[in-house]
């Protein structure tokens, strides 16, 4: 069965017709040729497909497109309108917070979403004080980004990059 829907991706409006089984990830990659979010597992286990969906970091492989009619999606590409890199993206380049780059757009969307969560006081499992402001030290950053696997093992540099921007 197919349904029509609209998505706004990185500021661009799209109308499309998709199979009800199509995930947001496949709608982006296979229907709209927007390949910034990556497919690493299709099962919500790696984080490569992370996008900002209505402002929150979301695993697009676990989201059905038809359930998100009218959604606003930002991919890592959309964080750099006109090619101007987002400070986090620049920090990733400067700290070499990647190797192959396949996990990277997901890491960056996840980090942007995570910084916003922390700014709103959301605690993590390693937060001691559940009522005060969140202080993003290395352990907090590592914990909060552990849904994004990096098989190249760039974690140490990823934390460096995020720490620089979180400051």
């Amino acid at each position, binding site marked *: 069965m197919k349904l029509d829907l609209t998505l706004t991706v990185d500021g661009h409006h799209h109308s499309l017709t998709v*199979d009800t*089984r*199509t995930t947001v990830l*496949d709608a982006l*990659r*296979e229907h709209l*040729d927007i*390949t*910034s*979010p*990556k*497919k*690493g*597992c*299709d*099962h919500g*286990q*790696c984080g*490569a497909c992370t996008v900002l969906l209505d402002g929150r970091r979301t695993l697009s492989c676990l989201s059905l497109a038809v359930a998100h009619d009218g959604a606003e999606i930002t*991919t*890592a*590409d959309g*964080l*750099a309108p006109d*090619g101007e*890199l987002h400070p986090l*993206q*620049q920090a*990733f*380049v*400067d700290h*070499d917070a*990647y*190797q*192959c*780059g*396949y*996990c*990277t*757009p997901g890491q*960056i969307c996840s980090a942007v979403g995570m910084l916003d969560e922390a700014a709103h006081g959301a605690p993590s499992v390693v937060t001691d004080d559940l009522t005060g402001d969140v202080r993003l030290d290395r*352990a907090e*950053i*590592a*914990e909060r*980004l*552990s849904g*994004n*696997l*990096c*098989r*190249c*093992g*760039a*974690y*140490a*540099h*990823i*934390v460096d990059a995020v720490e620089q921007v979180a400051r």
Partner: protein
Amino acid sequence: MTTASRPFVPHAVGTAMPRPEGPQKVRGTARYTVETPGSDALYLFPVQAGVARGRVTAIDTSAAEALEGVVAVLTHENAPRLAREADADHGVLQSSTIHQHGQYLAAVLATSSESAREAASLVSVEVVEEPHAAVLDEDSPDLYTPEALVVGVTDDTRGDPEAALAASAVTLRRTYRTPMEHHQPLEPHATVACWEDGRLVVHDATQAVSWTRQALAAAFGLDESDVDVVAQHVGGGFGSKGGTHPNTMLTALAAQAVPGRSVRYALTRQQMFDLVGYRPATVQHVALGADREGRLTAITHDVVDQGSKIGEFVEPAAAFSRGMYAAETRRTTHRVVPLDIGVPTFMRAPGEAPGSFAGECAMDELAIELGIDPIELRLRNEPEVDPESGLPYSSRNLVACLRRGAERFGWADRDPAPRARLVDGWWHGTGVGSASFPVPRFPGSEATIRATGTGDTAGYTVEIAASDIGQGARAALTAIAADALDVGVERIDLRIGDTAFGPAGPAGGSAGTTSWGATIVEAADRFRDKYGDHPEDGDEADAHTPDNPWAGEYSMHAFGAHFVEVAVHADTGEIRVPRMLGVFAAGRIVNPLTARSQFLGGMTWGLSAALHEESVLDDRFGHVVNRDFAGYHVATNADVGTLDVEWLDEDDPYVNPMGTKGIGEIGIVGVAAAIANAAYHATGVRVRSLPITLDAFL
């Protein structure tokens, strides 16, 4: 073949350079294989065998064919014939015989990924199962002696090690085990193939476009010149994307059925556990004999590897012990148990990674037995020349790495007593492990340098079919080309990842930068001989990889030392690694920025192998049970503590004109041993089998 006659003067080499492709990677606009544009491409989804051995007796594709959007369903009954019966692994859809679980039995081509997948589920296959064996049993009657390792002999014996062991003041005999492991690069293997007028054009997630071209040309009976292979961005490989696997063959075969149309196939994460190689499990028997002062009199290292009946790859784990330490007598052997499972392959530091777990744990156990500090024991057994070849080392700075690491880590204050430091409910301990990795050079790359523009501002196009799988080839080769031409990096336009640029060796064996770099330096030298430093537009020179004239004169290896701190929870047995330090002596470092990433990546892999990774085979069906990232654990961000990396300045004039040694693999070697040694120091429990899980401490 000559070597470059000009001295190589590093300017760009040795200077931190961000990856040229960095902005594309952080935006996600760098295109990986399956993202190759092409809107009418068909999606492929396979049907796979559910048994380890047997025969297809009937296959019914009618329901699949009837599904909307399905263009073709291929089986062994209707698929195009390959030119020859390649290894059974490459001979996809050529017969009804099933050699392994997960083998491709059919392929659906459809206009959408959903339809392809649904149709594949509608193909009904009848199979007659045959008896099989899937799990490694070192006492198997099928155990055999392979003819040779990929590099070096199968067995090597010097003197009479058994007599020396019997006569030694101290003798240690231990057995270590390492599991089957899967590479799992984050980008799943993928291929996009299209036949156009008898030519085969393939985008492939590969570490070696030339090797993929060779394999395809052989399978389809084509001239290599009729096959193009392109790999611009590759999302990690670690060895699994070195050889060509059945998925690439299947995609090219299926595309033959729909000429002029592209077929794309990216493996699911689950399929990544079936057909694209793995590190085989090992059983390693190690014996060390020593006098009371800790001088080794004998080393024996006898390995039994998990293998496949379809094709041979021998994990050369005992080779690690051939060159590490001095001993008058020595024996290293490799045996293989062939099983009804897929073919194993190179995985990051093949041989050295599992071999160092056994070798470096055994050294720790011997140090404890003797009451000698484990670093001191290694220093006492430092060889003068390579114990295997008898050649002098081009440079060997293991001792310097151990000393520098000890200083930086704070080893001097270490109390050797095990189970002596309980802090807030956690037992703490520290451990050390040595690392070594050879410096090979792959022959057969070709580089072309062409001037664009004229005079002082001329640009240089440098073409070589290298692969960048994340190691940083674009930055490194740009820097090498700039220095070889004695110009700034901004004047270099490097082009890689395409067989249009001629043959090239792989991104593998820690030999990419050495092999491609030496070729570029040679081409630059010829270019300057021919045209000087003020070329005309279009001036061009090329070169093949030069032989290394020192290859038979010196033994060439990188070395390193790992120091780790481990904490084991006294009640739960949970094991953490709060602190790791790696010190390396690996020749000249081309790009300090990306090199650090390679070392960190290797160390993170070592941590992951030590604590997480194990593919569990089900003997009943011959498949990996924990076939996704929820079941097959790799290190996450929160698993990694403080990582510290240092490299020593090392000037090695013999390895290649740039003075570089490979650094892609040495970072993993010795890490698992250092962690196991630290875990013993923390708890008094010796774990001789990977991965080290909490049950060992309860």
